[in-house]
């Protein structure tokens, strides 16, 4: 059941109607049933995997909460994490790693035959396993008390708006909203409408329409493309994945908002980022913070004491490698993660070195001014625009690795950009289409960024908002994508 399908909206209308008439406890039961129906609509067999994951962590957290022994708590947590990662390993990574192991061993003259599993990847498995893991870790750390109600915990795991593609919401944020009676706030309808409207616009108008261009270019052999066409293919994919994923997150937030539940913000105008660290503070924020809190910080602080610079850099690269692997079991994703890891570490090294030199030669004030520039606070508009332009292209280079079928294809396309930059009518036309679909959103986001308020449109006069929504609806109505696409992040 996709958010951009009619069946979802019929489903949601029924859920919403029931939600409005039921008392709190029955609301939770109904939402749980609806969430399982929503998930089972893809394939009812997936339900057992999710239920298994839920049951394990529900009891694991209770056992951790009850145990006085640190060692025992650690053991239970380890078992719980192993079960969750085991699910991912079996369903998501087994085929990839078994193929690679067989290939490597064969290269050393050791013929091995590993059994093939041919398992269907349960939709959204990476999201709910990560979410339940964060819950048990939080309980282990004593940051959260284990839930006593299985219904509430199961709803926390399966809550349908964010179940299959995030945002990843921590138990500390979502479980209290499930446990306590929800309050209808005056702004819920307005903000929910805004989030759903912009989400559908991003997903259908931008994501799906640009998917046709990106697919067409990436499915053409690189030697048949000009450099401009390769570049436009990458641009198209950059906006496709942004429209697709941030659109999904936005609809998820909007739908949850109509149910008086707040989900985490997942995107904050990422293509207006001025540096690699700024980009990761704006892109898939819920995953970035997950990796920061549950992987980066523990790894950087391992062994206690202050982490060395070398360790911080290497940890950053390792975390981004894992993040790449989280996105999919393929070398292109690993390379994408490695690329971003190196970009982050390199940028950190650059800013720290620059500050050190400035501090040495020009004093602390100049160094602080440079630090402010690095975060974009003190930069001029022109400086920010240049930084955005550069950062956008660095991100696009990553998208080339991410979207390509293989590293060879990515390299071939990159080579074409530098060796055969012919201006073809197809390239110009596709570029014009990218601008036609994506430019209004970018202009709007630039305005939002200047106002420093993601919900600014909900605070302007209703006529202005009405005109903006009319544009969105007319684009949705009259510019349907050639082929309706599923959300890219479902596969993760």
């Amino acid at each position, binding site marked *: 059941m996709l958010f951009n399908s*009619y069946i979802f909206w019929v489903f949601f209308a029924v859920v919403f109607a029931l939600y409005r008439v039921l008392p709190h406890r029955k609301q939770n039961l109904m939402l749980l049933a609806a969430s399982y129906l929503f998930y089972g609509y893809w394939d009812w067999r997936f339900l057992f995997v999710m239920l298994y994951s839920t049951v394990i962590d529900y009891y694991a957290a209770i056992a951790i909460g009850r145990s006085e022994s640190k060692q025992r708590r650690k053991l239970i947590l380890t078992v719980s994490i192993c079960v969750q990662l085991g699910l991912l390993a079996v369903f998501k990574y087994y085929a990839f790693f078994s193929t690679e192991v067989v290939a490597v061993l064969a290269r050393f003259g050791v013929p091995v035959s590993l059994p093939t599993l041919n398992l269907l990847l349960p939709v959204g498995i990476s999201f709910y396993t990560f979410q339940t893991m964060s819950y048990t870790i939080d309980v282990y750390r004593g940051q959260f008390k284990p839930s006593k109600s299985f219904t509430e915990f199961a709803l926390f795991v399966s809550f349908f708006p964010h179940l299959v593609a995030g945002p990843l919401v921590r138990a500390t944020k979502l479980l209290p909203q499930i446990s306590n009676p929800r309050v209808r706030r005056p702004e819920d309808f307005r903000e929910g409408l805004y989030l759903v409207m912009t989400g559908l616009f991003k997903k259908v108008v931008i994501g799906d329409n640009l998917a046709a261009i990106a697919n067409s270019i990436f499915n053409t052999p690189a030697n048949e493309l000009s450099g401009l066409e390769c570049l436009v293919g990458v641009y198209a994919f950059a906006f496709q994945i942004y429209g697709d994923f941030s659109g999904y997150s936005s609809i998820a937030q909007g739908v949850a908002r109509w149910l008086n539940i707040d989900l985490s913000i997942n995107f904050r105008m990422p293509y207006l980022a001025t540096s690699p660290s700024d980009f990761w503070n704006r892109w898939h924020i819920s995953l970035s913070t997950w990796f920061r809190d549950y992987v980066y910080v523990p790894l950087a602080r391992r062994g206690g004491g202050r982490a060395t610079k070398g360790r911080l850099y290497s940890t950053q690269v390792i975390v981004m490698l894992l993040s790449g692997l989280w996105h999919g079991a393929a070398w292109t994703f690993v390379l994408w993660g490695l690329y971003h890891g190196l970009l982050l570490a390199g940028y950190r090294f650059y800013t720290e070195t620059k500050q050190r030199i400035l501090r040495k030669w020009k004093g602390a004030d100049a160094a602080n001014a440079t630090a402010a520039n690095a975060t974009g606070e003190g930069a001029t508009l022109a400086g920010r625009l240049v930084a955005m332009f550069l950062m956008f292209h660095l991100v696009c280079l990553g998208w080339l690795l991410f979207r390509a079928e293989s590293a060879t294809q990515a390299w071939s396309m990159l080579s074409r950009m530098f060796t055969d930059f012919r201006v073809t*009518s*197809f390239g110009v*036309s596709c570029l014009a289409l990218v601008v036609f679909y994506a430019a209004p959103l970018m202009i709007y986001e630039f305005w939002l960024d200047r106002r420093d308020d993601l919900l600014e449109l909900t605070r302007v006069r209703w006529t202005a908002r009405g005109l903006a*929504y*009319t544009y969105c609806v007319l684009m949705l109505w009259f510019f349907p994508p050639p082929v309706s696409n599923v959300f890219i992040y479902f596969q993760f």
Partner: protein
Amino acid sequence: MSSSTSSFRNELKVVALVLVALAACELVVRLREQSLSLDVRHIRQIPDISERLAQGGDDQQQHLLRVLFIGNSMTRYGVEPEIVEREMAAQGVAPLRIERVFPDASALPDWYYAFKRYFDAPARAPDVLVVCFAANDLQDSQPVHSWRLAQYYTNLGDVPEVFREDIRDFDSRAEFLLSDASAAFANRTRVRERALDLVIPDYRETAQQINRTQKSQTGERLARTQPTYRRLARLGQLAESRGVRVILVAMPERVDYELDPQLHMAAEAAGMTLLDSRAGHGLNHDSYVDEMHLGADGARIYSHFLARQLAPKLQGIFDVKRQSIMATGK
């Protein structure tokens, strides 16, 4: 008034503004629908075509052979009715009344319902229905364009059959109903094409290139599935109930395509004649304006060729019709 009520009312005004804009678009599309494309104009003329087939009363009709060509833009650009008629006359097949129905990018789902809606009546049914197809146009795997069926080729009575046989998923059914209610929704892809044609340089060529890539991927997927022809069998039954003979004509393309071997059996089972006219003697690379459409010279050559191929079949049908008239004494 509480802030909650005021906030909600403001949002209702926002929604109302959007609805008014949509209503205005609906009105404009309804008023200007025929200027959207030649294709819409042609589709809106199908009732007239059907009317022309019915003209002349029973007496006149019984002494001529009424032939309806149904296909897509390949038929529009590839079959010249005057040439076919002249060539037929030269072959001794006359008098004929030839009409053509050729909605763009259509295939059997559209043709089945177009025939059913406009020609499935005693006076309007042709004697011969010539279905001009290419590649997998006749296979059940052909996408069903719910908006076109809803707006142009079906009426309320067809809905049970459409939902039972051709549109089975919820979303397509919802699109069908929306398209039935709204001309703007049904024509949204046409509006998109017109708008993008205005603002994007070389849009048509680009769209065709993108379509080709998508089609080749879809084609690869379809090639892995076993083709079926249930819809073709339904057309056979429908035609038979009206005494209409069906001839399937495989049209030429610049690059030759494979004809599914099972199609011969399916056509035979449905009581249809399959004519393999892909070769189109005399056609060469330059006869085409693109990968599938014939130019003026190509159309002339092909129309002569097709008429010569069709003539013996039509002569046979004509003879049967004459014998039947003599037997019934009319």
